[in-house]
């Protein structure tokens, strides 16, 4: 048999195309042929039959070598997400065979408008993790193969990035499999590492941070954990399908409820700010007068406070450049902080 291709630039040397039981076949070639054979059959093909027809398996000298080879190939196909079905053609068959159902194998029809394709191209570049970027690229290859035109470098004025944590992938996998997880967790205010056992309901991104929400078995209550505070590996425990998410739970609200909403000012404060100092305070303040404190000139300003507690931290940070005039409670809070610094350092 000779090459059927008539072009001068045919990549294969003439006459070498057909397989005449010669040199060993490249593994990738054997796998492609296996996929094509299993896609084209409606009957289940037994391992023995596959050994007889698919080029490459004849290279296995013994039954045992073939069996090893075939097992490894099946594993690889399954890892790629190829739906390998097993079954018997009739009740009289003694061994199971294999086939691939075309409708389970093939990507559904998809057609993206140019602006949709541009969004996809951008999304592929969003992850800051090589692993997730690789997965997204894999999806892109398949979309292209489905005929979608995606320009790799869409021009964009804004470049967002999605940051992930090492715990992200194992938690997502556990959520999708409905599997209980165990991990070590450290709250930000405590050195204590605690092992937590969680029935995970979902992974949530809120304002650029990742959380996992679920039923905390140790507390016997729903809880939310920040992924960046998980230490070490996330271990899946127990069987897949063991977790059911309550139907009425709103994951986003669960997380958003534990983080502050867009605030409205809680109070107004009057401060004295030294001449030309504390730019960080001045930019949020309205100058309402002048005043001398000791021998130093400065402005009297008014400022809206959103979080009085953190305002005290922030004002104390400016040291002698900012003095609280009112309210007294804020003045006292700042004074406490400054005194703690002085005493803490002396004691």
């Amino acid at each position, binding site marked *: 048999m000779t090459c059927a291709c008539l072009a001068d*630039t045919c*990549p*294969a040397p003439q006459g070498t*195309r057909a397989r005449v039981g010669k040199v060993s076949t490249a593994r*990738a070639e054997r796998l*492609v*042929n296996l996929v*094509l054979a299993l*896609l*084209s059959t409606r009957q289940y093909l037994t391992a023995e039959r596959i050994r007889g*027809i698919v*080029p490459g398996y004849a290279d296995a000298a013994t039954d045992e070598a073939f069996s090893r080879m075939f097992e490894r190939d099946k594993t690889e196909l399954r890892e790629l*997400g*190829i739906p390998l079905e097993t079954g018997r053609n009739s009740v009289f068959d003694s061994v199971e065979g294999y086939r691939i159902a075309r409708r389970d*194998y093939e*990507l*559904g*029809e*998809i057609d993206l408008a140019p*602006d*949709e*394709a541009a*969004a*996809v191209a951008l*999304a592929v570049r*969003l992850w800051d993790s090589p692993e*997730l970027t690789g*997965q*997204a*690229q894999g*999806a892109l290859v398949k979309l*292209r*193969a*489905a005929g979608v035109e995606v320009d790799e470098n869409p021009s964009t004025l*804004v*470049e967002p*990035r*999605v*940051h992930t944590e090492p715990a992200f992938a194992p938690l*997502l996998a556990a959520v999708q499999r409905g599997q209980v997880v165990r991990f070590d967790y450290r709250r*930000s205010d405590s050195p204590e590492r605690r092992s937590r056992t969680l029935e995970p*309901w*979902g992974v*949530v*991104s809120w*304002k*650029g*941070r990742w959380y996992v929400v679920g039923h905390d078995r140790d507390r016997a209550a729903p809880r939310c954990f920040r992924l960046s505070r998980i230490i070490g590996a996330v271990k899946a425990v127990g069987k897949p399908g063991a977790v059911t998410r309550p139907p009425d739970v709103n*994951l986003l609200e669960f997380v958003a409820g534990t983080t502050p909403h867009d605030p409205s000012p809680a109070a107004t404060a009057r401060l004295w700010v030294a001449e030309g100092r504390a730019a960080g305070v*001045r930019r949020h303040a309205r100058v309402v007068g002048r005043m001398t404190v*000791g021998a130093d000139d400065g402005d009297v300003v008014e400022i809206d406070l959103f979080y009085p507690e953190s305002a005290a*931290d922030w004002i*104390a*940070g*400016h*040291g*002698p450049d900012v*003095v609280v005039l009112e309210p007294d409670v804020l003045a006292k809070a*700042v004074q406490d902080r400054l005194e703690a*610094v002085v005493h803490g350092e002396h004691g």
Partner: protein
Amino acid sequence: MSGSTERLPRLLALVPYLLARPGIKIEQAAHDFDVSARQLRKDLELLWMCGLPGYGPGDLIDLSFDGDTVSVTYDAGMNRPLRLTGGEASALVIALKALAETPGVVDTDAVHRAIAKIEAAAGDARPSGVVVGHAVREREATARTRETVRAALQAGRALHLRYYTASKDQVTERTVDPMRLLIVQANSYLEAWCRRAQAVRMFRLDRIDRLEVLDEPARPPADARPTDVSDGVFTPDESYPDAELVLDPDTRWVAEYYPCEELAELDGGRLRVRMRYGDESWMVRLVLGLGGGVRVEKPAQLAQAVRQRAADALARARHLPVTLPQ
């Protein structure tokens, strides 16, 4: 053998890809699959040896080459790509959801349409269990700033800024040549060539107090390089001084918020960290604001500066009743 795990998905996608694009240039296909043209030719050679049982000329995948282009003339039944895996569908759809929650990048309507189509095509692989909420933390004023910056980028114009530099606690006026807008960990930044600093700088949008789009064009120098933000926006310089701090349980969040090296867990839930800082006055403000919840162990000069500022502040506050108006 590890090569085949990368190669097989490409081989399976290649035939349908070529079917959809008869007469495509081999160079272009290689580019789309992110491999060399040489590798792509090897892939085509391999596919050309594959086909259906029987493996006669009419059973094998057939390709026709014309100059530097290629077409599939027989696909041996491989006319659609393999469906998306759960991992692929998740990686793509979650990124799209994040994009939809990030204002001002692309038309979010297009993103939602793309998500719906990909989920429909993904079938069982459609990702579940992931929710993406607001991808930025910002107030209305910052959203307005972003729109102005975007307009300047689009029109290729320089910007005049009034900018607050938190590290120095200074407000400065500067003219910059915008390069790009970035959203990193929910904060928006303008990366631009700063004519004042003669360097590429990142400007956090919520610290831009005023801005004006200028008539003159943006002209960042040709050698102005974008910053690598894969490790965050602020990467402490090796040359910066470092401080050793002991954080109380109440102030341990500092280690999470700023780039720190954790040195030791101490009794009482305290944590010793090493932290680099670019500007001493910034470090003094941070430590003072933590109000005794942190102890500066090194350097002595920083500890002294913090103590002095606290004492001065208390002294000044004591002057108040005398000079208070009314």
